[in-house]
């Protein structure tokens, strides 16, 4: 009997994995049935056609170059936006005049349609850099807003304690504000990664950035190669999923005990 060999925790984990596989198989089956019913790989390729497409793509070195360059753009845009968002957000949260100075800029960027930003930026700079800049412009306001919120939500009682005990301002920032802002910054990072992929690939298509995953998607569309269109889409979803999971894993690993407690409270 399995139950005699495995502990309760392992059985629970196996059940969860089994459930997830079951759900995935259900949707795959639904997709396969829809493809069989449509009966045209030009309109809706089957999961097998899509897998074959991925195998074909993987045989070409350009596939990996495209993914690598797109990944660089995503990481570059997300890294710059999160780093600057945290730094400027901390200053904005602590300094009201700086917040008033920055807020109109952030509000305008937030309300701009992504397509307008891409087209405008493409007028001014080289196509290859457009996705990176656009990713920054879309992800920066998310981080900035989250971090400013985090600063404003810092426990007033801890700040009063630090004031009474005459703690230096830099130590208050390092030991109170930054740990308080951490959960907000992590949430901003996860949002930025999710947004970053979508924005980068969209910008690659609209800016004709080469080499790129976005342009491969576009070529699949204009050559009516729907199998490859699905394959590229699948690759994007998988890349986004893996990056999100790896980031979460790294955050969990680096979390300190006390920070865990703080986030729970």
């Amino acid at each position: 009997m399995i139950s005699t060999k495995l502990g309760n925790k392992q059985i629970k984990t196996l059940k969860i994995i089994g459930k997830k596989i079951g759900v995935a198989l259900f949707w795959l089956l639904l997709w396969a049935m829809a493809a069989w019913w449509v009966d045209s790989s030009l309109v809706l390729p089957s999961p097998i056609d899509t897998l074959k497409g991925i195998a074909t793509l993987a045989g070409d070195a350009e596939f990996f170059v495209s993914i690598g360059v797109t990944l660089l753009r995503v990481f570059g845009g997300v890294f710059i936006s999160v780093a600057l968002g945290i730094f400027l957000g901390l200053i904005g949260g602590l300094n009201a005049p700086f917040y008033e100075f920055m807020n109109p800029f952030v509000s305008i960027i937030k309300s701009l349609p992504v397509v307008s930003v891409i087209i405008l930026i493409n007028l001014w700079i080289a196509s290859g850099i457009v996705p990176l800049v656009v990713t920054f412009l879309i992800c920066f306001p998310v981080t900035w807003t989250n971090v400013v919120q985090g600063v404003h939500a810092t426990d007033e009682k801890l700040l009063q304690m630090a004031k009474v005990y005459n703690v230096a301002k830099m130590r208050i920032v390092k030991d109170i504000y930054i740990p308080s802002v951490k959960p907000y910054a992590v949430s901003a990072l996860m949002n930025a990664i999710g947004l970053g992929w979508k924005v980068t690939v969209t910008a690659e298509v609209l800016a004709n950035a080469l080499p790129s995953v976005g342009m491969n998607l576009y070529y699949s569309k204009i050559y009516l190669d729907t199998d490859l269109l699905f394959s590229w889409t699948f690759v994007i979803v998988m890349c986004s999923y893996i990056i999100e999971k790896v980031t979460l894993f790294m955050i969990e690993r680096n979390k300190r005990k006390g920070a865990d407690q703080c986030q729970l409270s």
Partner: protein
Amino acid sequence: MSIIIKNLRKAYGDQIIFDDFSLILEKNKITGILGPSGSGKTTLLNLCSGLDQPDGGTIEGINLSSISYIFQEPRLLPWRTIRENLRFVFKDQAVKRNGAHDQEIDAMLKLVGLETVGDYYPQELSGGMRQRVAIARAFLYPSELLLMDEPFSSLDLALKNKLMGDFLNIWEKDKRTVIFVSHNQDEINRLSHEILTFSDKPVRILRRETI
């Protein structure tokens, strides 16, 4: 020099807390202030500590950079260990003097019976232990004035008695000026050299007795 409060005025909106209030507090003694909840006891401590500003009048004889404060709750940084929490308030002061802050922190932890939990996080300690850390922090910080705002109110009787004993032991070794507010007569009687009873708002001193 004593702490001299002269013609103090403080109001929050329409609520007048202090109106032409005057008081002299002796140095190196524990002054207990009794009064009903919301009568202005905490406001007085916040005015003395500089956390709040008076609308009028003066408070003399307090060096604002030399105050310790034991709040109603311990106010420890949840993401720092107990030792790091003490270092947080003490490091700058210790470096100014001799730099030997870690030895002093260990000695203080021993004094409050927490020498084995220096590397624990506040969440891993009981409420009483956390409050002892707050007392340790207040005494570790080189202050002339110690403010205490009902620091024992949330504790059970046995723990309260133990902590008040610990407090008196430490104070005997390091006699500072203490203003201790509470609405609990027993706590005030046990710790104070002088007891002031506040009226409801606006504050008047109903009774002043020396133990």
